[in-house]
């Protein structure tokens, strides 16, 4: 899931300075799961903003709404009235959700209430860890389902560097050595021989370096093939 974390109230206030009627819009998917942008967090941020503005004797109206998913137009429709009736939207979605709202409402100022952190998992209650950098060409199958690009601090594909100590990375004692994880995992599943194969070249053309990515699945598109009919 995409993991986010709330911005400081003062930073949010600065962004919202020009606007009077502000909609705090939550997203019911990833950021609800990581307790950053769901209905409860919308309530908390909206309340904090109301308090902050009233302390400044600033007459602003803060309204609240949460939709199922901000990154899909179909769900955005559910908040269409609230969005249209506001001067600006403070989106508590990931960066994709913020931009989806902005694209749907070209003249509406939309601001992020969260910092989108990474694609990760809930490691344990209250701890989320990054697992994927969305490189666009998944190779974890070669590494026992441990991503060397994400888990190794140097993104090495051909084995560990010389600074791994007791399974920890030189970057920090809190960071596990990605290559130690890969070795342990391949050993556990009986595939250590995979490490004898030279690492493939990374196809960075599939990653963000190639510009904004787009995935098109013709089998899922709803378009009529006129010529064929």
């Amino acid at each position: 899931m995409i993991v986010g974390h709330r911005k400081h109230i003062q930073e949010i206030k600065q962004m919202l300075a020009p606007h009077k009627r502000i909609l705090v819009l939550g997203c019911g998917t990833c950021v609800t799961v990581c307790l950053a942008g769901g209905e409860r967090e919308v309530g908390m941020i909206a309340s904090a903003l109301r308090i902050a503005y009233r302390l400044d004797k600033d007459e602003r109206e803060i309204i609240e709404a949460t939709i199922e998913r901000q990154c899909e137009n179909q769900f955005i429709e559910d908040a269409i009235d609230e969005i249209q009736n506001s001067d600006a939207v403070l989106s508590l979605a990931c960066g994709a959700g913020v931009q989806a709202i902005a694209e749907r409402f070209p003249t509406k100022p939309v601001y992020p209430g969260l910092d989108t952190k990474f694609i990760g998992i809930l490691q344990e209650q209250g701890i989320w860890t990054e697992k994927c950098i969305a490189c666009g060409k998944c190779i974890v199958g070669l590494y026992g389902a441990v991503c060397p690009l994400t888990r190794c601090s140097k993104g090495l594909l051909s084995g560990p560097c010389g600074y791994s100590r007791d399974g920890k990375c030189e970057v920090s004692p809190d960071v596990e050595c990605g290559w130690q994880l890969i070795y342990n995992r391949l050993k556990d599943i009986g595939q250590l021989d995979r490490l004898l194969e030279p690492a493939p070249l990374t196809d960075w053309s599939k990653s963000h370096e190639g510009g904004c990515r787009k995935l098109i699945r013709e089998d899922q598109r709803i378009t009529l093939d006129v010529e064929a009919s």
Partner: protein
Amino acid sequence: MDSGEPRILALCCHYCAYAAADLAGSLRLQYPPNVRIIRLPCTGKVDIAYIMHAFEQGIDGVIVAGCLEGGCHFQEGNLRAKKRVGLAKEVLAEAGIEPERLEMFNLSSAQANTFAEIIEEMTERLKKLGPNPLRLALSDK
């Protein structure tokens, strides 16, 4: 209630803090009359929204009172509440409200005296802090 006196909301758990408040009444213990109690099944029920809304409405201080640590009737509700109170303090501070206006206390159902002391302590603390600045902002309207 005298408008000059601090107004306190106490979110008390059913099994300990509320029972202690009840016992304080039975024992005829005297404590400042500034507190209004809302009984919750457990402090684990405390949502940050309850606290934020109370301050938004101009309350001067909020007490979250639960069982002694390790003595929660729902195992760890009070420990969860403690963390939520910590986050609420953080967000309140960012919004401009002194985080000292919010405090969590732990006591057993037998500690009626402690309940009275908690109310006295918070009343004194809030007198020093003065009224919730939001209450003043609201009354200026």
